[in-house]
């Protein structure tokens, strides 16, 4: 009985919906604030302490704004895509170890959940395409086609590199991979190139500079998001924040051991999980923000060219490298 009650708390409060929502807004704040610092700006400053409540204020404001449905849009897709994208982003996060409470693994962990999460990541990209396509706006349509084209570029290297971590750890359960990586230093260091590749791929998945080609505001207004306003835009922004959370949590879990790490003396193990998780994911979000500040936007052909010529080859080389290490018995 106690166990079930704890499970409900884990689902709804911590590290369930409530904590994940907080985490998504927190990461948006870290991203914006660090990005601003790199540009010698302050970023959000007066909304809550250090502008901490800025993402929340944006969210509430958009929820309360007029929700326009243009006459020409496909009403079904226009309504479905924001809700489905938010739901999928939440759904995938329950398979990634964040702060394991009851069992020592993620809430929904099972053997093979890595495949499921990769599928959800692709679905999210595809939903962006559908959202833009359903808007029947010329800018949305161009943005949607670019999203789909970009998906062809980053998706395969990303899948290869995520599965490489699974190969190295000998399991497809994200939580078990994280435990293995956290306890095996050789595996963790052999996966460092994979970490770099996955960060580049997630930057493309999240459509951030230099891969913000689908929403290039100087060319195509706001890309696939152009026609969305009010509540729908709020849901999309929130889903994007959750996607950022998913990217950071998944990268941290697969390549850095996620919440698992050396025990910190004198505190309960759950608190150390929380501290390790926040530390690793915040660093990853800062790296993503740093890439955003460093580069300018690529053209779509440059992006796909880069993905297939360099990123995919690097990902496959990394997979072969891990296989060789496994065959040589270096990784126990």
């Amino acid at each position: 009985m106690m166990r079930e009650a704890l499970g409900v708390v884990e689902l709804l409060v911590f590290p369930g919906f409530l904590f994940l929502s907080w985490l998504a807004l927190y990461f948006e704040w870290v991203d914006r604030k660090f990005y601003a610092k790199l540009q010698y700006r302050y970023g959000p400053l007066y909304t809550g302490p250090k502008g901490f409540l800025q993402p929340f204020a944006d969210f509430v404001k958009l929820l309360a704004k007029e929700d326009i449905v243009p006459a020409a849009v496909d009403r079904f897709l226009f309504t479905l895509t924001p809700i489905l994208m938010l739901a999928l982003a939440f759904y995938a996060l329950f398979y990634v170890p964040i702060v394991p409470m009851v069992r020592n693994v993620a809430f929904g962990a099972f053997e093979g959940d890595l495949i499921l999460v990769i599928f959800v990541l692709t679905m999210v990209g595809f939903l962006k395409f559908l959202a833009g396509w359903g808007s029947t706006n010329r800018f949305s349509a161009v943005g949607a086609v670019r999203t789909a084209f970009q998906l062809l570029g980053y998706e395969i290297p990303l899948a290869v590199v995520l599965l490489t971590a699974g190969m190295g750890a000998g399991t497809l359960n994200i939580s078990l991979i994280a435990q293995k990586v956290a306890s095996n230093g050789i595996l963790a260091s052999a996966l460092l190139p994979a970490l770099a590749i996955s960060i580049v791929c997630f930057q493309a998945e999240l459509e951030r500079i230099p891969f913000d080609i689908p929403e290039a505001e100087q060319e195509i207004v706001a890309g696939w998001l152009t026609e969305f306003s009010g509540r729908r835009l709020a849901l999309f922004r929130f889903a994007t924040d959750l996607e950022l959370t998913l990217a950071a949590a998944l990268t941290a879990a697969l390549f850095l051991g996620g919440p698992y790490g050396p025990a910190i003396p004198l505190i309960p193990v759950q608190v150390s999980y929380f501290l390790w998780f926040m530390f690793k994911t915040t660093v990853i979000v800062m790296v993503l923000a740093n890439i955003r500040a460093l580069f300018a936007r690529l053209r779509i052909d440059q992006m796909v060219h880069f993905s297939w010529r360099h990123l995919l080859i690097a990902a496959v080389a990394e997979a072969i490298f891990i296989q060789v290490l496994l065959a040589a018995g270096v990784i126990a």
Partner: protein
Amino acid sequence: MGLGLVKWSRIKSPWILHFNSGACNACDIEVLAVLTPRFDVERFGMLLKGSPRHADIIVITGSVTRQIRDRLVRIYEQTPEPKFVLAVGNCAGTGGVFQQCYNVYEGVDKVIPVDVYVPGCPPRPEAIIHGVVKLLQKLQEAS
């Protein structure tokens, strides 16, 4: 309580759309200075948005030429409620040096309702920020 939260969020997160209705670019450069590191209005939660569907405040520069009138009205209608209009510069207020030209409307308020006027040719970035603060004060005082 609920309405108080909405009002707070509106004041804390004004997103702007920058619209040039026939300005000479001087006002536009000052608007950009507001957004870039020296004045950095993201401190107050202001972001520049590309799509009128995402914006709260339309920042209009220029004296509304006959050619751009229909586009301006359409952009205004595309913006979701509640929306506000900030007329930046003398041209946007009164037509400025283009007054009595055959091809201008002599001010944004001849075409769409305006909430705050910021005079100047061009107004300094501080003046534009002051205009936005006036607008947010109006919002604060409205019930």
